[in-house]
């Protein structure tokens, strides 16, 4: 047999290098639901940025002659009790909700990760103290805690954001802590120690990057929750203040007109739901793409 094929290692065609992130993106792209979520989120982000350009009318143009008009060709979503165009306000509201959502989560992630890393990495009494603190915070009914915090700081959007960030800290802290604890056991950490790597370096080059996936997933889902919480605080009058077109506040204003002008309630509510849905879909998709093990 002269045409014998001998190969040491089969030469594979030089394929495109797909890193884990790229891989995740491919996985993400495959999920229709996740893409749909991303489209919704993107749409609201666009609305938030382009709001002033596309919103048919100014958000604070009071026109008492046009109060509580039903949806019509001129005012697609109708008008509110100041005669303001609800569509415009809903569009502008996107900015507020996304702002609160993003920044409160970023705040919780930063503080939570820091505490979580310290607890998970150093262990012992530091861990005990931090973990207890998390337990304590989690045992609070979170909305009550948020209300109390806003009461201390005074009701405003910014303070609502802080309150929401605070109540979500233990969630991230715990997540990171458990990730750190579990990654610490992974063999590649052993391997890194085995080659003589320093602890801090292991922390930053191995443990942290590998904890990021669940944090991103959790973070996306937390944006959804944060938007809901901000709306709830707004609804209770503890969030954004008039005349800001915050969706929760718009809903609380609409309560008085439930009977005569239900549109004042329907559209802001739908906006909240859609945004939150978008983030949830996206988070689910990210979870499946980044971290299929994390299902809870």
């Amino acid at each position: 047999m002269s045409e014998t094929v001998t190969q040491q290692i089969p030469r594979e065609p030089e394929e495109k290098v797909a890193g884990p992130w790229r891989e995740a993106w491919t996985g993400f792209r495959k999920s229709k639901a996740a893409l749909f979520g991303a489209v919704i989120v993107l749409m609201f982000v666009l609305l938030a940025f382009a709001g002033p350009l596309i919103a048919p009318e100014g958000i604070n143009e009071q026109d008492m002659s046009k109060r509580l008009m039903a949806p019509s060709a001129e005012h697609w979503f109708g008008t509110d009790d100041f005669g303001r165009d609800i569509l415009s306000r809903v569009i502008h509201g996107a900015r507020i909700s996304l702002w609160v959502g993003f920044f409160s989560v970023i705040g919780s992630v930063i503080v939570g990760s820091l505490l979580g890393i310290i607890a998970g990495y150093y262990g012992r009494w530091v861990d005990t103290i931090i973990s207890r603190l998390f337990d304590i915070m989690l045992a609070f009914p979170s909305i009550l805690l948020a209300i109390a915090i806003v009461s201390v700081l005074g009701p405003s959007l910014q303070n609502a954001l802080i309150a929401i960030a605070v109540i979500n800290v233990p969630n991230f802290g715990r997540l990171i802590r458990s990730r750190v604890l579990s990654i610490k056991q992974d063999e590649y950490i052993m391997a890194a120690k085995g080659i003589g790597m320093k602890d801090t370096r292991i922390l930053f080059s191995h443990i942290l990057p590998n904890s990021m996936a669940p944090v991103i997933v959790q973070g996306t889902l937390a944006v959804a929750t944060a938007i809901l919480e901000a709306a709830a605080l707004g609804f209770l009058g503890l969030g954004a203040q008039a005349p800001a077109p915050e969706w929760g506040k718009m809903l609380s204003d609409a309560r008085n007109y439930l009977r005569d002008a239900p549109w004042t309630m329907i559209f802001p509510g739908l906006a909240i739901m859609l945004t939150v849905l978008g983030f949830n879909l996206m988070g689910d998709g990210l979870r499946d793409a980044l971290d299929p093990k994390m299902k809870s």
Partner: protein
Amino acid sequence: MLQYIGKRLLQLIPVLLGMTFIVFMIIRAIPGNPAQVILGQQASPEAVASLEAKLGLDQPWYTQYFEFLAGILTGDLGESLRTRAPVAQEIWPYLAATIELAVFAMIIAIIIGVNAGIISAWFQNSWFDYAAMVVALIGVSMPIFWLGLMEQWIFGIELNMLPTTGREEVRNPVNAITGLYVIDTIIQGRFDQLGEVIRHLILPGIALATIPMAIIARMTRSSMLEVMRSDFVRTARSKGQRMSLVVYKHALKNAIIPVLTVIGLQMGILLGGAILTETIFGWPGIGRYIYDAIGFRDYPVIQSGILVVAFFFVMINLLVDILYSVVDPRIKYD
């Protein structure tokens, strides 16, 4: 087991202590003088000062804190600054109202959520699965106060089918014994009233049930999917067991464990987090009670209220842990 429970209860102490401390500090940081609030907008400064002294609010904070702690140890939650009634006595009806609502909501959530999750997992990728999961996703994305308003609008106003406020038909009031009206009416054989009580529970119950239901359904589904892939399910099937039995006997028992955790957590959240629902549906519950107390700076009520809610929260989680060991023989507590 008893020892384990005892130990868990001991562990609770630092958590609850930490909570009391945090609550104590936070509410005292809230600007606004309770004495002023109690006496109202039109009260004189002397009256305010005298009330402050009487309530001990002029004492340093640590004295107040330790008095509060000492009170708790003797089962004394203090007196409401506003109503002057002992909190321990005042709090129960509120708590009962919330418990009744939360339990009702949780029952709805569990029945629908668990079954939807099971069927979705069983017939993965079927239309039912898709539909159920879309509904569940919308469920977790729904602002419940909006849902509550929509319910009121549709069922209360447009269809006028169900009562939108309160717990009972006030013209035919329930004679409260336990404070849980469903039980009270049954004990007293007042089934006409029971019907009314349940009618009142429906709308707020649904509003409150939505999120846990959705979460439970999603959790059950993913947990079931995982279990269905497990070896022992394959073993059960290889014995020739019927699929329905495999699902409801072998798989469910295993899949339910993480769901229990979620149920416990959600139950805790319902107990403390029902403020919005309670506000919208005029439900005289504990969330509203504490929220109002924050408005009135009614320190003892806020402190004790949150403490009680947290206590329930932790107890429910303890109960869940105990349930684990009932379900799962591998878990031994010693």
